[in-house]
């Protein structure tokens, strides 16, 4: 029986080879061939697409993306950890509602959530109107890097709260009681017991925020404007506007590498192997 049901996976294997593995191979192929190679007959292998990437302008975009994503991740952690901690300590009857309220915005379309901030930060937006009402000068809030970070924190903070909450709610209360019995004060209990045991949640949270943040192109496009490009915008521009598949593919490969590297770095810290990503 078992031997026969394994044939059920064959159609799907064909499917994933065609639509997942082969396209990834095509991206890799485009990234290492030059633009003038037409069709299969005249493929020129080259590393020029990767070399082009090391021009100052593009390297700056790369560093900007990593930097903005990192800041957003840190802010999400600083804001999200206390929230997850408070929810996990709330009365058991309230816990689910409190958590549900935190993740409900996640179910709303990301574009709308980002767009909502345009109406708040814009020149005629809520904040500037309020400042005008007080007789204060208008601030330039929209189309800045700060607005991009704001949008990323807003969009991705549920991804931080959820895994930390899960880790904290699994925590064995007896450990905390034991520590208290042995004379540890609240600070020490948090530092030596609660925080280390919530690490798997923190790590998953960091991965789950950093990954979409570094690759997003909606948020910098709508909130950061044209001046504050991130690596995702560059890929979009190269594929949609310029039609430069070779360079675009090379950047996509670089982006995949950044994500794989950051995931494997984070997994190194992860003591509990179950919580981490399965690919590595």
């Amino acid at each position, binding site marked *: 029986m078992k031997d026969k049901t*394994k044939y059920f996976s064959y159609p*799907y294997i064909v499917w994933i080879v065609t639509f997942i593995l082969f396209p990834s191979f095509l991206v890799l192929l485009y990234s290492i061939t030059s633009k003038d190679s037409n069709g299969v007959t005249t493929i020129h292998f080259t590393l020029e697409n990767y070399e082009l990437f090391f021009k100052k302008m593009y390297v700056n975009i790369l560093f900007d993306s990593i930097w903005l994503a990192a800041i957003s991740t840190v802010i999400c952690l600083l804001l999200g950890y206390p929230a997850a901690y408070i929810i996990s300590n709330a009365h058991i009857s309230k816990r689910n509602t409190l958590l549900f309220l935190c993740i*409900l915005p996640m179910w709303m379309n990301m*574009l709308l959530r980002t767009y909502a901030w345009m109406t708040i930060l814009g020149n005629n937006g809520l904040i500037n109107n309020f400042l005008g009402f007080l007789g204060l000068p208008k601030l330039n809030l929209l189309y800045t890097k700060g607005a991009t970070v704001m949008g990323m924190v807003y969009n991705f903070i549920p991804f931080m709260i959820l895994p930390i909450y899960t880790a904290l709610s699994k925590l064995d209360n007896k450990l905390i009681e034991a520590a208290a019995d042995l004379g540890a004060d609240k600070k020490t209990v948090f530092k030596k017991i609660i925080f280390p045991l919530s690490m798997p949640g923190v790590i998953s949270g960091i991965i789950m925020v950093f990954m979409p943040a570094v690759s997003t192109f909606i948020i910098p*496009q709508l909130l950061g404007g044209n001046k504050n490009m991130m690596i995702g915008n560059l890929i979009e521009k190269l594929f949609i506007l310029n039609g430069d598949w070779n360079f675009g593919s090379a950047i*996509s490969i670089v*982006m995949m590498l950044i994500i794989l590297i950051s995931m494997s770095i984070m997994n190194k810290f992860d003591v509990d192997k179950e919580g981490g990503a399965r690919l590595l």
Partner: protein
Amino acid sequence: MKKYLSRIYMLIMYIFLYAPIIVLAIYSFNESKSRGNWTGFSLKWYIELFQDRDIKTALYYTVSIAIISSIISTILGTIASLGINSLKGNMKSLVLNINYLPVVNPDIVTGISLMILYISFNMDLGFNTMLISHIVFSTPYVILSILPKLKQLDKNMTEAALDLGATPMYAIRKVIIPEIKPGIITGFLTAFTLSIDDFIISYFTKGEGVTNLSIVIYSMARRGVRPTINALSTIMLTVVLILMLIINKRSNLESKTKNQREARY
């Protein structure tokens, strides 16, 4: 004291999470085009929205692609899960890792790789390519929600069915499928919501005249704030809210009956 502090903290958190959405909804009823001033209650943006042809076609494509792709990926995923579950060793982990690729890969990379595939094979970008792409990225989630259920499955049950003379297909239909049904339903719902919500992959695999709501919102928002988007957002938010309440109620009911059932045994 500490209690109050944590209450205030959570309150600020919820204001941060919900204020933008509420502001959006309020301004969708504003008569004036500039968001700055409140000039009176009006439904004119909703009327304008319902007359917008682009939005109507986008809505049609969004819903039809979500329905078709979630049904196909549920069927494909269920069959694949049965197969993957009985694969062994390296082959199994290889298939699982490839299956995992669209989950960990940034959407933009999945999007461009599919776009390259379609164009390289001279496929016309449009409804079909968008549909295939949605099946590609949602099937892995279906499989990931069914496989754990298959692992929990009691092997003796299938063997008992076979010993009692059931054909393998009959055993799958009558024993395995009912047991993994919760996983299949979760997978279907995940596939459906992912498809409704998708922007990035659709954006790279869309074709002439075929768009979805996210793409319309993106191209409108790019040109600045428009009151019709506020109206559209408010409608979409209401729909999501109602859906979530229904799902929540359903799962509450389910866990309640489950507890009762467990209590009885």
